[in-house]
């Protein structure tokens, strides 16, 4: 199969990218082509994360790429988005790793940490020597993180944490966990290092989706941390929610990558497979599906480019990001399902990447704010009515 990572660029949007942005995209695409695609099906089959790729990703500068200083590359948000797009063209699990490391963990420290915390953690995380995870979701609190049950109790000069976090990407891989907990007056964030007494993790198995990614439970039983482990600038639920906005931004781009791989695969397949008197791509039903995917990918690309411009200008609202996450992931999921359908029986085996992307995207549709939650965010924005409760 020829080059499933190739561009889909019906409107010559490449012209709107700077040479540096194109170069960044090409670098990550080459990395995925040479180092990810050859191993990803094996990792998905074995339910393992390709940990040996982390030093390479760090060396190429992919972690915290849109953060400035502290050993981060300091690229703009277009370049950051393109990195996510290319990683997810390989596998959503790989992009998830990068998202959690960069947009959730590093960003939380970058935005809400003390100078000392930033200097201690960010350069190590940019170098891939230290992996982070982000503990917000709990077994009983997904879409309503405000209802969290994890508690942080004052104990002398420090804190004692108790509670359980679930569905935490990179949980057991992480050297530092950002744990959000309820204090007497507000929700606060704490940096809990691996090995801290009372802090354990347990991996979640039996996943049919995101199998090349580690998903864990974090268990906190009387975990004592000093006050210097608290993120001093995070005050209330706005802290973790702003991290989610960063992650959603990367997901909106990433989904295009997954959709693109599925589309390229379906296009190549239907142009070469003959049934009855002609190639599949010669039938109207098949063309209708291909055109639908190509159209939706193109629209999603335009949304992301505009969103990136707004974000770089400091004018992107969280609702803009919700729009892009909601639209692009739903688009990618539909693209993957249509591509799966066009590949027929071949669409269900791992000889082709389509079924893997399709299964992964079910997770992407749900995590970092479900499709329906994004709908409510946008509904509230345009009507002024809060439909959450």
């Amino acid at each position, binding site marked *: 199969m020829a080059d499933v990572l190739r561009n889909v660029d019906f409107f010559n949007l490449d012209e709107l990218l700077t040479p*540096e942005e194109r*170069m960044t995209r090409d670098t990550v695409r080459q990395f995925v082509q040479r180092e990810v695609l050859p191993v990803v099906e094996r990792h998905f089959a074995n339910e393992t994360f390709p940990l040996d790729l982390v030093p390479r990703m760090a060396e190429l500068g992919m972690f915290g790429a849109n953060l400035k200083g502290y050993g981060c590359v300091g690229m703009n948000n277009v370049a950051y988005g393109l990195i996510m797009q290319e990683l997810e063209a390989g596998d959503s699990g790989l992009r998830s790793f990068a998202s959690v490391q960069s947009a959730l963990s590093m960003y939380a420290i970058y935005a809400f940490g003390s100078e000392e915390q930033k200097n201690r953690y960010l350069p190590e995380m940019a170098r891939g020597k230290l992996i982070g995870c982000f503990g917000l979701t709990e077994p009983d609190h997904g879409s309503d993180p405000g209802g969290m049950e994890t508690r942080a109790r004052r104990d002398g000069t420090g804190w004692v944490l108790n509670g359980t976090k679930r569905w935490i990407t990179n949980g057991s891989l992480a050297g530092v966990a950002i744990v959000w907990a309820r204090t007497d007056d507000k929700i606060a964030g704490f940096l809990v290092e691996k090995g801290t007494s009372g802090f354990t993790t347990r991996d979640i198995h039996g996943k049919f989706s995101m199998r090349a990614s580690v998903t864990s439970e974090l268990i906190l039983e009387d975990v004592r941390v000093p006050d210097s482990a608290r993120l001093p600038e995070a005050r209330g639920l706005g802290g973790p929610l702003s991290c989610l906005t960063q992650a959603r931004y990367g997901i909106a781009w990433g989904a295009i990558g997954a959709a693109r791989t599925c589309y390229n695969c379906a296009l190549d397949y239907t142009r070469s497979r003959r049934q009855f008197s002609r190639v599949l791509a010669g039938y109207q039903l098949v063309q209708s599906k291909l055109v639908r995917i190509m159209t939706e990918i193109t629209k999603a690309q335009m949304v992301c480019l505009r969103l990136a411009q707004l974000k770089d200008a400091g004018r992107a609202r969280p609702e803009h990001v919700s729009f892009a996450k909601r639209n692009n992931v739903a688009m990618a999921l539909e693209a993957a399902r249509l591509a799966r359908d066009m590949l027929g029986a071949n669409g269900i085996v791992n000889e082709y990447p389509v079924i893997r992307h399709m299964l992964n995207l079910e997770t992407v549709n749900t995590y970092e704010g479900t499709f329906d939650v994004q709908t409510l965010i946008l509904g509230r924005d345009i009507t002024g009515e809060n439909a959450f409760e």
Partner: protein
Amino acid sequence: MKILVPVKRVPDPATTIRVLPDGSGIATDNVKWVINPFDEIAIEEALRIKEKQGGEVVLVAVGQQTWQEQLRTGLAMGADRAILVRSEAALDTLAIARLLAKIAEEQKPDIIILGKQAIDDDSNQVGQMLAEMLGWPQATFASKVEFQDRKCTVVREVDGGLETVAFDLPAIVTTDLRLNEPRYASLPGIMKARKKELKEIPADSLGVDLTPKLKIKKLDPPPKRQAGRKVASVEELVQVLHNEAKVI
């Protein structure tokens, strides 16, 4: 060691090339442009030499302003600076070799490393012409390059095997496919490339005769491949190979 690496901009090898209806060239809309893959190998080799023994890697290209993008990619891989000899007109290999010889006289590199050929016109001429003009030794189709003081040893890929040659610097080396695997431009490298020097020189300011000696009259797309044919038995296959294809 000061290393000069001439670079050419070519269509991405993965691009589907369409010949214009009048045969005057190829359709360039929506073509992705990249560094000639053999030149990329030359850049990689130059960077490895520099990492081992210090020095400077200077890129040079002869082309239009848009070629800056490929030079920037080379700078992002790690080259120190770049020179773009600006020419709006497409030049033939002889004119390009003359311009590069001028640049070499001015820059005085210890070695010039370049691709054995460009993947667009497959001329395989510039390195050899350059060696003749400068009066320097040349080692083409290199698959291994080693140094000892001012001596260079190159293993060449020749028909039927490998040939090892040794010569004194300064010299010309052209790269073959198996010399190395080029690195990607890292993201920090891309950011650093922003600040590196990229100097433009007009081609007609170098006092070189650029009159084309070669004219491309017409391009034709390769003929469509004939469909294969099925044979019923091994006996028939052997018959066909012997009597029709005449290969056994």
